[in-house]
């Protein structure tokens, strides 16, 4: 992997961040009400509005405002929330940390569940196990997170069962078991939906790998089935799976927005929804930018991992 390639990809990442930031900023510019109207409410006098607009710099041209926003952003200053009055950066990064924990748990669960199931389906292609896995994955990719989450709520948090808490958050650093107990339902929801995606991919990649010449060669050499499966077929089908996992971070981000909203989990997704409802512009800008950047970064890391793992590929 050449340094030049990494450099080029980093450049693309910066371009992506710039385009997304311009888009997000543009959107908040088109909005009928600006920050001053939001702070003072719709019954504010015209004089008060003009005064505040001047104070906030809203009377300046859009590009000046954009430049100020971007230069603040590069210094880690994302502005102040219009609702809470707190610094946006603190709120956003605190929420992001909680969401990343949620995502990490979900991804670990997916890797543990989806890869073995996909392998089993591929090995037993056309048999009952394969059919079962395919059925489950079709249902999984067709069930929106909010439906699944609501069904899990009905089933597992009903007053007479109350297996899990219906909402809320306890930091696992504060109380480990209680923290896990609160994070369980959001993680289960995300894991089920993601497992369906990843399982499908592992199955089809593994099925291709099992027909490849090198697998046949390994079998003819008399290696055991397990060795052939794990050392040869699985290893090669892992490469596309990494790409899919990275692409699925896109679903995961969408899922996180919905799941956090439903389970009242104070992460970045819920922060964004609340900010949109309250029209808290600096918060919307920062939240959207952080999410898009996380996605772009995960795609970059997946590509780099792909190149590193598969020495046959040479990008320039």
């Amino acid at each position, binding site marked *: 992997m050449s340094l030049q390639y990494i450099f080029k990809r980093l450049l693309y990442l910066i371009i992506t961040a710039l385009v997304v930031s311009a888009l997000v900023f543009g959107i908040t510019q088109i909005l009928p009400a600006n920050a001053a109207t939001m702070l003072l409410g719709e019954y504010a006098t015209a004089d008060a509005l003009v005064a505040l607009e001047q104070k906030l710099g809203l009377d300046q041209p859009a590009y000046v405002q954009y430049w100020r926003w971007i230069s603040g952003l590069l210094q880690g200053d994302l502005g102040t929330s219009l609702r809470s009055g707190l610094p946006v950066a603190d709120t956003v990064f605190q929420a992001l940390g909680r969401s990343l924990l949620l995502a990490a748990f979900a991804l670990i669960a997916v890797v543990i569940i989806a890869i073995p199931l996909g392998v089993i389906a591929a090995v037993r292609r056309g048999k009952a196990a394969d059919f079962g896995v395919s059925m489950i994955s079709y249902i999984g990719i067709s069930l929106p997170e909010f439906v699944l989450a609501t069904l899990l709520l009905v089933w597992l948090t009903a007053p007479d069962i109350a297996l899990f808490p219906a909402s809320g958050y306890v930091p696992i650093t504060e109380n480990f078991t209680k923290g896990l107990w609160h994070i369980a339902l959001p993680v289960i929801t995300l894991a089920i939906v993601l497992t369906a995606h990843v399982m499908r991919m592992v199955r089809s990649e593994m099925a291709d790998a099992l027909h490849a010449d090198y697998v046949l060669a390994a079998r003819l050499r008399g290696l055991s089935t397990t060795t052939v499966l794990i050392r040869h077929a699985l290893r090669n089908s892992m490469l596309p799976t990494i790409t899919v996992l990275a692409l699925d971070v*896109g679903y995961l981000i969408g899922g996180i927005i*919905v799941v956090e909203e439903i389970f009242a989990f104070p992460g970045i997704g819920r922060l964004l929804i609340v900010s949109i409802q309250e029209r808290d512009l600096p918060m919307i800008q920062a939240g959207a930018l952080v999410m898009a950047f996380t996605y772009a970064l995960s795609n970059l890391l997946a590509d780099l991992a792909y190149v590193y793992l598969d020495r046959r590929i040479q990008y320039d």
Partner: protein
Amino acid sequence: MCISIGVFNMTDFMSRLLRQPHGVVGLILLVVLAIEVILGPALAPYDPETFHYSSRLVGPTPEFLLGTDQFGRDILSRLLWGARTTVLLSLFATLIGAGIGGAIGILSGYLGGRIDEVIMRLVDALMAIPSLLFALLIITVLGPSGTNAVVAIGIAFSPGMARIARSVTLSVRTSDYVAAAVARGESPLWIMSREIAPNMLAPVIIEATIRVAFAIMLLATLSFLGLGSQPPAPEWGLMISEARAFMFRNAWTIVWPGLSIAMVAITFNLLGDALRDALNPKND
């Protein structure tokens, strides 16, 4: 009988589609869905917005086959009326995405060079925004409503469609018939729409079919979040959102609309997979 559209053979295509089990199941489900969409309101036993005060939140009974919601509205009737909105709006959102994306992709691929490079970098950057987040941002501007949700999903889908359209354009741009059209002195617009666009039919239809499933799920999700269709519309996502406060008293209010959304999404996912296998020349 053999209907041929260009090189595309309808009879052959159908037999390829029906050779796969998921194609058969997908087509059957599509027929059921079409009946629901066309005849839904006629089949509904009650008006979808009539309150039956004496029987609120009842489970399935002979009188109310799927039960009633918190206002005593018949769930079956609401689902049947809602099918039209939910399915047609999702198709429409996908069409918007295919239209905008297709046009951008063809233009970018046809013009090539620096313009293509710039457009594709922009498209890549937009693809770095997850669909739901993209749709949320657009709705922030447009305001929450069913129509705006459709527009938002359409725009959010267009970068992906643009990529596909561009790759098809690049593959046929150097072909003899495009060169012939250029030599005849046809206008670029004519070449793009008559010579290049028809090649896009198969890949765009495959992508669009799978996208319809996403569109349905996204549309329902936006309605659920209060950013799509507004009450009292019998939109399926909205039905779940409204019934949430009463879900422990009658879980059917959640189960039926959820099942309906999943069934439509499964229909288009199965069809999309079957189309991909049927239209893939590798499977000859």
